[in-house]
């Protein structure tokens, strides 16, 4: 059993974490406050921290001014689909790179990583032409298929699968288990924390993606939340109260997902009996 830190270490840790935590959280609370201000309060040159009367109507206004319900559904379908695909495919390919020896392994791995090195907007036009030729524009396929897996997830899983002792795999092979079975029964249970991290980060990243949904959708009702939010900007100024309210809505699911998944990636600690 590992002993807890000393009293001084404990106080120091709390001090540092408290300060850093305040710096990370306060600006976001300010965003929440903005979402409850009146338009005049957000536009004012004398900013206020907290509105005189909280305007919960700002949230209702979002739904009145745009098909915001559609935006939410689209975001959930697209991001959910992509996240599930990543959880299925990324660990599998990561496993191969972590535990198999084959010719060109390192070359192929670097080739894989190169897919992260061209920013999306550079690839966007060829990709858009491709989707246009397939007749997929403005469909869920166009929003999901180009992102079914990525090198980030594969690399992440490779790094977490690598430390798993080869003895475990060897033993299963001697028992006559198939490769897929070894993967499902031996490897996956070992990397639950990494899977939770992968699922969370994939979701967050795709949930906030802007450029591709902007280009690949052609009607308003197919937009995702980040693209839909741009409707609340005027030509020369931002409707801050609505943008902030939309940002809060955009923010809530990722926070919920984090709260749900975080107990998996701290599994080790909870197993040792400390809370």
């Amino acid at each position, binding site marked *: 059993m590992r002993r807890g830190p000393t009293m001084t*270490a404990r106080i120091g840790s709390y001090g540092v974490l408290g300060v850093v935590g305040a710096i990370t959280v306060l600006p976001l609370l300010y965003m929440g406050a903005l979402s409850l201000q009146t338009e005049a309060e957000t536009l004012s040159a004398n900013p206020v921290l907290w509105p005189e009367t909280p305007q919960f109507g700002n949230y209702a206004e979002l739904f009145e001014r745009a098909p915001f319900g559609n935006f939410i559904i689209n975001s959930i379908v697209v991001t959910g689909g992509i996240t599930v695909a990543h959880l299925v495919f990324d660990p599998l390919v990561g496993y191969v790179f972590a535990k198999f020896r*084959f*010719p060109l392994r390192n070359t192929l791995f670097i080739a*894989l990583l190169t897919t992260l090195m*061209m920013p999306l907007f550079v690839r966007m036009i060829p990709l858009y032409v491709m989707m246009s030729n397939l007749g997929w524009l403005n469909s869920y396929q166009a929003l999901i298929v180009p992102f079914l897996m990525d090198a980030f997830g594969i690399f992440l899983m490779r790094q*977490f699968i690598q430390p798993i002792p080869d003895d475990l795999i060897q033993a299963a092979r001697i028992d006559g288990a198939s490769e897929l079975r070894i993967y499902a029964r031996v490897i996956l249970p070992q990397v639950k924390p990494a899977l939770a991290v992968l699922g969370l980060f994939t979701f967050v990243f795709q949930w*906030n993606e802007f450029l591709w949904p902007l280009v690949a959708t052609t009607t308003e009702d197919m937009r995702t939340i980040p693209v839909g939010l741009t409707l609340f900007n005027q030509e020369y100024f*931002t409707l801050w109260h609505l943008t902030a309210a939309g940002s809060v809505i*955009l923010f809530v699911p990722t926070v919920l997902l984090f709260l749900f998944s975080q107990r998996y990636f701290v599994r*080790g600690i909870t197993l040792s009996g400390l809370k």
Partner: protein
Amino acid sequence: MRQLTTGPPRRRRLRGPLAVFAPSLNRRYVLTAYAFLIPAFAFFGLMFYLPIANIITNSFNTGPQANQFAGLENYTRAFEDASVQNSFTVTFIFGAATTIGAIVIGLALALLLNQPLRGRVVFRAALLVPYLTSVAIVGLLWRNILDPQLGILNRLLMDLGLPTQSWLNTHPLATIIAVTLWMTVGYTMVLFLAGLQGIPEQYHEAATVDGASPWQRFWRITLPLLAPTTLFVSVMAVISGLQAFGQAYIITGGGPANATDLYIFHVFNVAFTSRDFGYASALSFLLFIVIVIFTVIQLRVGRRNEVQY
């Protein structure tokens, strides 16, 4: 199963577990590996390599449709272009600072949060929340907070009788680096935390019994055993740092006078403002090569430090 020593186990060559890959069994595993990889690379081929090939083709072209052959013109132009050199320098500083900052701060926070502290869950959540939102929102939010005339920060500083700031004018690059770190340290913290979970407790216990100080344990056990995580974090931080875009696009517009003209933001403007897709493709490809070189170096160094046990 494995011996407990104060240091991490040494890498063993083709002994014990790695005997799995002895020549007699080789072929079967090679075939299995390729069976898994072929569909994956078919996907990447269509969605990534085909468009990338297209970009490389375009980089030798010019005109609004990038359909007139221009030979190496775009590349020679890139090497003479002062604004490209400026944005490369800016981006290099940005990438280095955000990579090092994210690793050092993220790891420090992960170590703090790996202790059995009460309320750990709350702190963990608090540190990660900035990463859960988008660069666009973070950018708008900080722009709104930091504006010297209109922002809430100066308002509060004034109310408290403190001197006000205009960091976006006086230290623009440092400011967007700080905002980026504000957003990303929670993310590296989570990755390090997940990595720390994978280090068997026995090592620490054995080391403590041997009388190693916490500092020694960190350098001799934690850090070497975290190598796979550190490698991942640093490779990804360099890749995303050199391709950062939203910070300039949303917060500073690249200013003042190109002080925050991040490379990819510059390329975006070449492509979509000046509509010079040929030149933009060449510039993208040049950065691509730079990132490949950085990544290969990191993987080489990382592989030497990777521990297998």
